[in-house]
């Protein structure tokens, strides 16, 4: 295929990484949701492009799900929740933005380093793209551990999921796992939104995990051994 | 063979017969040194007879052990004494028990006596037993260390062999032997309750040890115990005599003449040692009870030192 094709794939993967950084940067709820939507859309595009490159029509479904479901529905629902829980004004970073960013850079560097010795480049899917996917995953994880409230943690998790899908779709000819993984990501999203947040809200008036931890199973200070 | 048995028998009798005399001698000498006339030499025999004839007064709550103890004490001490060559070596029963056994037999006697002291349940009996045993915890190991030295030196724990060895050419002046001798003397003083460890003549409650232990005894029981004490003193002296001054002792199965000579020499030795003992006793004062452990500890240390010197210096037999 022409270098242009792989360049475009490359570009899309790179832009996902970029959006991940933007997600990491955001501390306002609504902005966070919007950037997540963008993240999902870019994913959709990249998956679509891969589908076109690999002549794999089933990947288009994945792309569509990514675009519609993750790009539209979930952000909207989360928006509702945020409004209902009245947490749209909270600024909830644990670590301040600067260090987080630096850490993110380090992660990207690390993922590139670990990918360097990879000799085999699976067709169109260049080593760099794989390292991009890896960095998206790591950034998602980083986001989960630098945010305090549940919604942003869920978003972090879902961006991590997106990274996975990026990698999976990139892996040429990888059978059925893609759909399943997407299905699972949706299932997870549902579980998160439906089951937990509402139940948690029944119990606690916040989704702040700190508060949730006020009721831990044990309290410290046991008698001596 | 029979002559060996004869000497053994004679020995059994001799130790019993001479023991009170030895006590008498020491008392007499001591009295003279103190410018007293002192009791006649044979007073101890009279005392024993007198006590035997008296009726026995036993505390109500005394048990069978209280009444059995004197016999056991007397018997074990006597046997132990009979196993020490006095005027003749190579005794028939010598092979039955070596030096360690003799020490242990005295231990048995002490054990029973201490129990008897506790039996009636008086405070003085307690004092006596407790202190006696405390002395023993140091005196017995000291004695054993001295025994070690001797037996390593002579390559045997048999008294006959030891004294034979001492007569032999290998024996010479040896620092270990000297240490052992000193240790042995200290132990003898301690074990027999002589000054400075204990005063056999006193009944001052808080200073007495041995006497406190037998405070409740009277009559024949007391006689047996006193006799045992006398035999014990004799035993120690004849032990020292047989090991360190083995000259003149008749060898196994020697003729009657030799035996007679042996008896004479033995009596002489006893006389000398008895004299020295009383001299020593008059020369120094009794020490506080809790100084005694240090006194006996010295003996233990000396004995141990002697043994170690011997361990590292001598090639084995």
């Amino acid at each position, binding site marked *: 295929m022409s270098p242009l094709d792989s360049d475009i794939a490359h570009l899309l993967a790179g832009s996902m990484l970029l959006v991940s950084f933007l997600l990491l940067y955001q501390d306002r709820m609504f902005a966070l949701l919007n950037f997540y939507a963008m993240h999902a859309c870019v994913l959709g595009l990249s998956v679509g492009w891969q589908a076109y490159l690999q002549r794999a029509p089933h990947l288009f479904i994945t792309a569509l799900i990514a675009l519609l479901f993750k790009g539209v529905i979930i952000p909207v629902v989360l928006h509702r929740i945020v409004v209902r829980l009245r947490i749209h004004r909270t600024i909830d970073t644990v670590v301040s933005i600067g260090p987080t960013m630096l850490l993110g850079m380090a992660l990207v560097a690390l993922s590139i380093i*670990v*990918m360097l*010795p*990879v*000799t*085999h480049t*699976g067709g169109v*899917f260049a080593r760099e793209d*794989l390292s991009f996917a*890896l960095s998206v*995953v790591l950034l998602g*994880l980083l986001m*989960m551990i630098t945010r305090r409230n549940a919604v942003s*943690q869920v978003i972090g*998790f879902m961006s*991590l*999921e997106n*990274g*996975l899908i990026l*990698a*999976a779709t990139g*892996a*040429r*000819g*990888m*059978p*059925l*796992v893609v759909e*399943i*993984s997407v299905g*699972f990501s949706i*299932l*997870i999203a549902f*579980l*998160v939104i439906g*089951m*937990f947040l509402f*139940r*948690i809200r029944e*119990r*606690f008036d916040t989704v702040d995990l700190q508060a*949730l*931890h006020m*009721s*831990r*199973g*044990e*309290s*410290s200070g*046991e008698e001596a*051994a | 063979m029979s002559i060996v048995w004869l000497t053994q028998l004679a020995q059994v009798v001799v130790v019993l017969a001479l023991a009170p005399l030895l006590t008498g001698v020491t008392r007499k000498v001591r009295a003279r040194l103190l410018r007293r006339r002192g009791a006649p030499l044979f007073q101890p025999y009279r005392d024993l007879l007198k006590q035997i004839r008296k009726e026995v007064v036993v505390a109500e709550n005394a048990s069978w052990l209280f009444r059995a103890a004197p016999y056991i004490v007397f018997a074990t001490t006597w046997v132990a004494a009979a196993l020490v060559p006095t005027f003749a070596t190579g005794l028939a029963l010598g092979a039955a028990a070596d030096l360690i056994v003799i020490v242990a037999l005295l231990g048995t006697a002490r054990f029973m006596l201490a129990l008897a002291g506790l039996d009636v349940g008086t405070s003085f009996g307690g004092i006596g037993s407790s202190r006696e045993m405390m002395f023993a915890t140091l005196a017995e190991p000291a004695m054993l260390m001295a025994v070690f030295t001797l037996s390593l030196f002579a390559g045997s724990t048999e008294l006959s062999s030891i004294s034979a060895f001492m007569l032999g050419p290998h024996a010479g002046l040896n620092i270990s032997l000297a240490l052992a001798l000193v240790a042995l003397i200290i132990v003898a003083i301690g074990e027999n309750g002589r000054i400075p460890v204990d005063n056999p003549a006193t009944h001052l409650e808080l200073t007495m040890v041995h006497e406190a232990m037998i405070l409740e005894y009277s009559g024949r029981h007391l006689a047996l115990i006193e006799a045992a004490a006398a035999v014990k003193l004799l035993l120690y002296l004849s032990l020292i005599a047989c090991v360190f001054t083995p000259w003149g002792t008749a060898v196994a199965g020697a003729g009657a003449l030799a035996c007679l000579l042996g008896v004479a020499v033995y009596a002489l030795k006893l006389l000398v040692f008895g004299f020295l003992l009383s001299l020593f006793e008059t020369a120094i004062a009794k020490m506080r009870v809790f100084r005694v452990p240090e006194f006996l500890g010295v003996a233990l240390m000396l004995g141990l030192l002697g043994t170690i010197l011997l361990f590292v210096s001598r090639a084995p037999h």
Partner: protein
Amino acid sequence: MSSGLAVLALATLLAVPAVGALLLAAIRSYRISAALNVALCALTLASAAALYAHRPAPSLYLLVDDVNTVFLIVGALVGFTTSVFSAGYIAHELETRRLKPRDLRFYHAMYQLLMFAMNVALVANNIGLMWVAIELATLTTVVMVGLYRTSAALEAAWKYFILGSVGIALALFGTILVYLAAEERLGQGMTAMAWDHLVGRSAGFDPALLNLAFVFLLLGYGTKVGLAPVHAWLPDAHAEGPTPISAVLSGLLLNVALFALLRFKLIMAGNRLVLSPGPMMVTMGLLSLVFAGFMIYRRRDIKRMFAYSSIEHMGIITLAFGLGGPLASFAGLLHMTMHSLTKSAIFFGVGYVSQLEGTQRIADIRGLTQSQPLLGWMLVIGVAAIAGLPPFGVFTSEFLLVTSTFARSPWLAVLLGLGLMIAFSALALRMHGLAFGESARRHVLNPWRLAPMALHLLLVAVAGIYLPRTIVSWFRHVASLLG
């Protein structure tokens, strides 16, 4: 015809729980559903046993070999006994109003779903399918942990859910990397995800990719195994969920995850250029062992305490497999089996204890051997067994493991022994408090309800004294396969 039987057995193994889940979701009466649950598990057990004798030919999706039959049979057995235990247990929960009939319907359905997921995970030949199955199992257990809807339960479920999902994600990434490594040699498509093909051809795979993949798989599936430092979900999930689920978690799910890990370890082992997986597994195992040992000292909640003991033993097993070699692998396999049986038995007992005493706080429970002698002594026996005292199977495996380790690398063995000692002392300390001392209470408990516990302990005791030759040779074979 043998193959036909085999295919049938495999089909029932998968179909029974799947159908059962739907059925149980439909049935309203909890008595019927509990009975049906037991029956279904019995069927599953039967088919699993049948699979030991007759193996169907491996397909691209499913594979039954010596290795996973061990896990299948152990799992099915524990699942069966647990269903028996749960029948009695759940009834009591209903009486005490801790659960509503609606919850029970959900619970039973989920129980079968869990069985289904775990069976699939075990017989899956396709690493993708295996991943999916384990994910399904995780999700079902998540909702079951949250069943009581107390704040603590929800917290535990939430914690489990978040950490579990992250683990799943990492595992998926690892799987993708393995596929990438394989795709080059095996070409695109199914074959590149079929485990038996992978393990055969892994020599030619790109070592760098495999290394990377194993890191993700170790952490991903290691989360499910409950290895420190990615263990955090495990204690709370065990403590807050219904006790049968704690038993199933410790007895089955951890093993299934470990099984997945072992499959990938074998793929790694086939390639001589890769970073050897052994040291990593040994390190994590040792870490878990020592860490859990210290954690047991300060536990207040009885179920949480035994959950930590599960972490400890998973550490031991991982260490054994990481160490490799015929003795160690055999020991690991034996230890895994024995731990499944013993730990589930202990959880049965603990379930009754917490029901009778009305608390899970260790401090409030004492003198069990007096208040309910049978239960108390069986609990003592269980603890003695899990602590590796003879005549129980755990002792045998620890004997083999420690002796062989000491002969090979003494320092490792010393650390191992230290960890064992720490955990043992902690368990002994707590057990004395629980089992002995004066207790005013007197509990009545129908002895038959202790039958599952008794069965497990009996099996463990027998295994400690006498293992049938067939099982020994079978395990030896499996151990040689596991390297």
